Each structure stands twice: as C-alpha cells, then as structure tokens.
C-alpha cells in the first residue's frame, strides 16, 4: 500500500450533541486537490454546512485543519486553520494560528479535527494520541483564557499539553471572540471563539508523540538548512526578528496610510512613540517563537509601573498595536498593552475590538452617542483609560460593550450611522488604509471573509513599484496574490516565510515532504480552486457584487494630509477587471464553465 507521506493519517470527527468520536482516514487525493489547511477546510465547510445555517447553532462546524508540511522541520510550518461560518459576517470564515497547536495535532496522529453539534453542558476535548475523550468543564466555565490553559495542564498533569481555549468573550458570544493557544496566539478573526462558546466547548487539549512520514528526509533537511541560512542573513527577516511585525509602523505611517482615529487620518506624528524601534527601546524584554521558526517575531513586553500595576504580555503585533492604538488615537504603551491584555484574557479579537472602540469614539465625538449611552465614559479619541474600560465591557457584554460585542456594523447601524463602521461584509479592516495602496481596496472588497489584509497583502509590491495610487493592473496583482496566499495558508506556512520561500521553493518543500510533484502552474490552479470554493459558499448565502464594496469613507473622502493626501479608491473599474480575470460574471458569481475547469461540482 502506498504510504501517505506528510499526512498524519486521520481526521477526527467529534459530535458534541451525541458524544460520538470517529476517526476517518485522510484521503490523499482530496489533499492533493486542496493541499490541506485553509483549502481543505473550505472544501469541507462548503459540503458539510448547508446554506443559511445559524452560525451559533449546532449545525455550524469548527473545522481545524493542519497542512502537509506542518509538524515537519519545514521552516515556519506551524499554522493551523479553523474554518467555520462566521457569526460576525455570516460568510465563510477561516482563521490561522501559529504557535505549537497544529504540529501537536499532527504528532497525535490527526490532520484535522471537525467539531459538530452542541454539548448539553460545558466540556473540553482531550486528545491524547489515540485516546480521545470529552471531559467535563463546568469548573472551567467563567475562567479567563490564561487561567483555563493553566487549569487544564494541571488537571492533566502534563505541562507539554497544548491547549486551545476560549475566554469569557467566547462564553458570552461576543461575535468576534477568538480561540487562544500558547497564552498569546490566536485564531483571531471572525468569531471562532463565539462558535466554540455556542457549542459549550471550553477547550481542546492535545498531546501527541507520533512521527510524520517524510518522502525524502535528506532533501527536506538540505532545503531546511538552506532556508535557515537565507533567513539568518535576510535583512527583512532580521528587522522582524528584532521588532516583530511592528517594524512596519514607521514606514506605513510615513507613507500616510495607517489607520488613525477610525481611518479619519492616515498618519500621525505621535506614532513615533510606538514604532518598532520604540517598542524595543521601551517595553520589550524577551522573544517568543512558534514551532520551527528562526525569525522569532514574538516579543514579550512589559510596563513595570502603571495605574494597572505591572502589565506583562506577548505582543502587541502590528495589527493589534495599530487598531487598539493609533486607530483609537492612543499612542502610549501603558494603555495599549493593558487593552491587549484585557482582550487576550477575555479571548476577544483585538482588531475588531479596537475597531469597535474607534467607531464608538468617533460617534461620541460627533455627538451621535452621549454620556448616557456610555454610562459616563468619556469616549474621546486618545482616552486610553476609556479604551481599557470599554474593552472590559465588550468581554463582559455589559453596557455599551453589549452593543459593540455584536460588531462595529451592528453598533453603527443601531446608532443610525452604518457608514461610519469601517468594515466589509461586517468584518473590520486591518490597519492599511486602502486609499494609500489601491490594490488593498480590491483585496478588502473581494476577500471571502470580509476586510482581511492577508487574503492578498499587495501593498509591499505596490510600494516597491511606486504605483500604489494607481488602479491600473491591480486586479491581476490581487488575483495572483490571492492564489499565492491560498497556497501558503493551505501548506500551513507562516506568511513571514515569504522572505525566503517563493512559490517554487515552497513546492520543493511539499515535494520533499509528500512526494507530490506539483509545478507552479498546477499550484496556482489549486489556489484558484480554493478561492472559488470560498466564493461559492458565500454565493450560496446570497452574497454578490453588492457586498464587494468599501465604506463610503474610502470611496469618497480623500485623506486630508500626509503622503497619501487627496487619495480615494476607484473600486468599480478594478472590480470589473477582477471579475473578468476570475471568470466570474459581473455580479461576482463564478460561472459553471470556470468551476467545471477547476474540477468543482456544486
């Protein structure tokens, strides 16, 4: 019998309604069609979660999926995905998490875990190699994320157990609650934590001791050594090693397209307080790495003396720093670190959390909401104490936090100003203002999970080519980047590995691990297949061109100052070109002919 190199061999299916646990053999032919991770998760969600499923009902699923290189020595192969229908957007959603959870799942003998149904009382899943049990968790319900991780390790008597948990944010069904692992690594976006909370599943604990079969171990070792050497001497990798993703702050701010004050501004002089260099100088005291990585971009940070006492966390990385910081007009470490800590402990996405607070601040400053709505909290831009107070309220779903817990679009709609929510399909923006890199406008508009930068982060190419203000050629750039990123995510690679691994090199790793012989053209077809499956899930839910849009602010309000002054996004032309290149009709719906060519039945 042919050995399935790179695969752990089984997918675990757990039904919390009736308590059944089944192991299904991993099907290599399906893996070859979607690689794994994000791609396979999308395919399974499309087939297993019917249209109009309630995202917080028992029929929604959480599909955790690793990639074929995950858990091997392939550098940065540590990203596990969770795929689900989002309670925030009602679209397809996938979220990636680094750390050690994905490799541990493979070591336990599983390529994925599918969580179905809803438990009758709080529980957690304990995967101990072949022994899989559903454990009671009434005693854990109500604990924050960090307490839960500690309690489960203590209960199981093994500090090496890897644990994915929800906090009170997930229990309270905050629509952008996240799932956390390794204390500070998150499946961050679109509300996977709320889905887990709706199933009364507090945690998944994993311990694995098996090995993963490799097709060509010597070739893999050689490729890995070469990649480590490239990364060790790569200036960009060195910047990220020193400052984490916050090496981006200074450049994006100086180019005038960084989220400031709910995107009313694209730059701020005060951002100089919180650049990557300032972070290293002021608050960093250590480094943290995910499995199999020599970039080591995670930073331990602390403020030793503050009104909150000693605040010690990992991070914040760039998106958290900017969306909790610059986007709320808060430019000091004390409040940014404390707000990050609060959201982490409640298990709530810092990006959507920060965006929700920024929206409330703009509404407060404009008199749309008043002290009566905020219970007296002075929600001015720049009020760091108010940021921290509202972060707590969101996690607790109390006061104004109960409104913001449903997402910025729901809150802005309730307040009669939906146009002030900086979102696409209900999901909040990353920190790159699309007026300063037009391709990002198309990326956000067409992303299958709402405004998400990593679906196609084109701004680096746009800056390097000095054409960031032009819409010309951006449809092709976005399309190609979307396909490329779908492959990276499906391999389970960290996106920072792009410094050293172009597509050709990535395929060499896949070949060494699995024995699959894929050329670049075939790989890009897989990327296209994944994007189309994701799109078809949303089409089935009723999404179309009308939803592929941007907030009025980006389309009609030019940035007032800075290096991107005067810019707006002309979306329609890019959208027309993009649909044509994708082989979709002008309503953004994939044609039967295109789907047929990609081997997708629907």
């Amino acid at each position, binding site marked *: 019998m042919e050995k399935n190199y790179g695969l752990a061999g089984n997918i675990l299916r757990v039904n919390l309604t009736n308590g059944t646990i089944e192991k299904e053999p991993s099907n290599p032919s399906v893996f070859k069609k979607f690689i794994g991770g994000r791609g396979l998760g999308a395919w399974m969600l499309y087939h297993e979660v019917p249209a109009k499923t309630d995202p917080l009902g028992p029929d929604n699923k959480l599909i955790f999926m690793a990639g074929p290189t995950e858990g091997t020595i392939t550098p940065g192969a540590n990203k596990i995905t969770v795929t689900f229908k989002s309670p925030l957007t009602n679209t397809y959603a996938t979220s990636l998490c680094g750390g050690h959870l994905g490799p541990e799942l493979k070591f336990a003998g599983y390529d994925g875990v599918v969580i179905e149904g809803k438990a009758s009382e709080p529980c957690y899943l304990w995967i101990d190699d072949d022994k899989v049990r559903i454990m009671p968790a009434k005693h854990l319900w109500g604990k924050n994320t960090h307490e839960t991780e500690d309690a489960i390790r203590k209960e199981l008597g093994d500090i090496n157990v890897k644990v994915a948990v929800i906090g009170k944010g997930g229990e309270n069904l905050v629509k952008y609650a996240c799932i956390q692992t390794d204390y500070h690594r998150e499946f961050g976006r679109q509300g996977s934590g709320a889905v887990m909370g709706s199933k009364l599943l507090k945690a998944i604990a994993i311990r694995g001791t098996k090995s993963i079969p490799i097709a060509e171990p010597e070739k893999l070792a050689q490729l890995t050594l070469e990649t480590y050497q490239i990364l060790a001497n790569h*200036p960009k990798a060195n*910047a990220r090693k020193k400052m984490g993703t916050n090496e*981006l*702050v200074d450049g994006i701010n100086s180019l005038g397209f960084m989220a400031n004050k709910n995107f009313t501004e694209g730059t701020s002089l005060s951002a100089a307080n919180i650049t990557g260099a300032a972070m290293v100088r002021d608050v960093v005291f250590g480094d943290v790495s995910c499995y199999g990585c020599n970039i080591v971009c995670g930073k331990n940070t602390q403020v030793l003396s503050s009104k909150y006492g000693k605040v010690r966390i990992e991070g914040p990385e*760039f998106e958290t720093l900017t969306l909790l910081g610059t986007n709320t007009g808060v430019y000091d470490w004390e409040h940014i670190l404390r707000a990050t800590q609060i959201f982490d402990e409640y298990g709530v996405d810092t990006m959507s959390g920060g965006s929700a607070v920024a929206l409330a601040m703009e509404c407060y400053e404009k008199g749309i909401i008043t002290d009566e709505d905020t219970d007296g909290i002075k929600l001015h831009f720049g009020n760091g104490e108010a940021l921290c107070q509202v972060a707590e309220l969101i996690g607790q779903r109390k006061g104004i936090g109960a409104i913001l817990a449903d997402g910025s679009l729901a809150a802005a709609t309730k307040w009669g100003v939906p146009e002030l929510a900086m979102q696409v399909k209900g999901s909040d923006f990353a920190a790159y203002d699309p007026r300063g890199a037009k391709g990002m406008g198309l990326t956000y508009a067409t992303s299958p999970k709402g405004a998400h930068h990593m679906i196609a982060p084109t701004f680096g190419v746009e800056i390097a080519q000095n054409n960031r203000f032009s819409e010309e050629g951006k449809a092709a750039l976005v399309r190609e980047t979307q396909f490329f990123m779908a492959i990276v995510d499906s391999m389970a690679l960290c996106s*920072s590995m792009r*410094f050293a691994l172009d597509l050709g090199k990535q395929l060499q790793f896949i070949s060494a691990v699995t024995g699959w012989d894929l050329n670049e053209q075939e790989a890009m077809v897989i990327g296209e297949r994944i994007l189309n499956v994701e799109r078809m899930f949303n089409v089935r839910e009723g999404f179309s061109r009308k939803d592929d849009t941007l907030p009025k602010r980006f389309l009609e309000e030019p940035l007032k100052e800075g290096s991107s002054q005067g810019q707006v996004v002309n979306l329609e032309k890019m959208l027309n070109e993009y649909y044509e290149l994708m082989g979709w009709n002008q309503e953004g719906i994939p044609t039967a002919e295109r789907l047929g060519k990609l081997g997708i039945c629907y």
Partner: protein
Amino acid sequence: MHITVKISSSILSNRQGDCIYLAEDSIKVEELLQKLGIDYREIGLVLVDGKKVDLSDIIYHGNEVQILPWFYGG
C-alpha cells in the same frame, strides 16, 4: 550642501529617523546608502522629493530622500 534623509526605523542601520547629511558635492543614491551604513538589500524603495529613484541616480543639494524597507504584511 545638505541633503535631508529620512530612514525608516525598521532599517537596521546605525542611523534611524531623520538626519541631515552634509555632502561636499552631489552624490549617487548608492554612495549615500554606503556612507550611511545601509545594506542595499534592506531597501525596498528610495524616494527623492517623493519620486522613486534608482541606486545609480544622483541626489542634489536640498533634496529630501526617504529610505523605505521592503514591506510584507503580517
């Protein structure tokens, strides 16, 4: 003559932030980077008075130079 140079703080040189570079004469971009101790591999884009330039282009008195890294989203 002087040239104002703005270096992104993510570029790991020993010169970060804004600086005024004093030169006796006009200077090539490549030479300026060398004098500032910046490895050209760190550079994604050099702008002179807001316009993209190549390493072989020449910078003159009063120019404002912006040195930016490669950007990868994260």
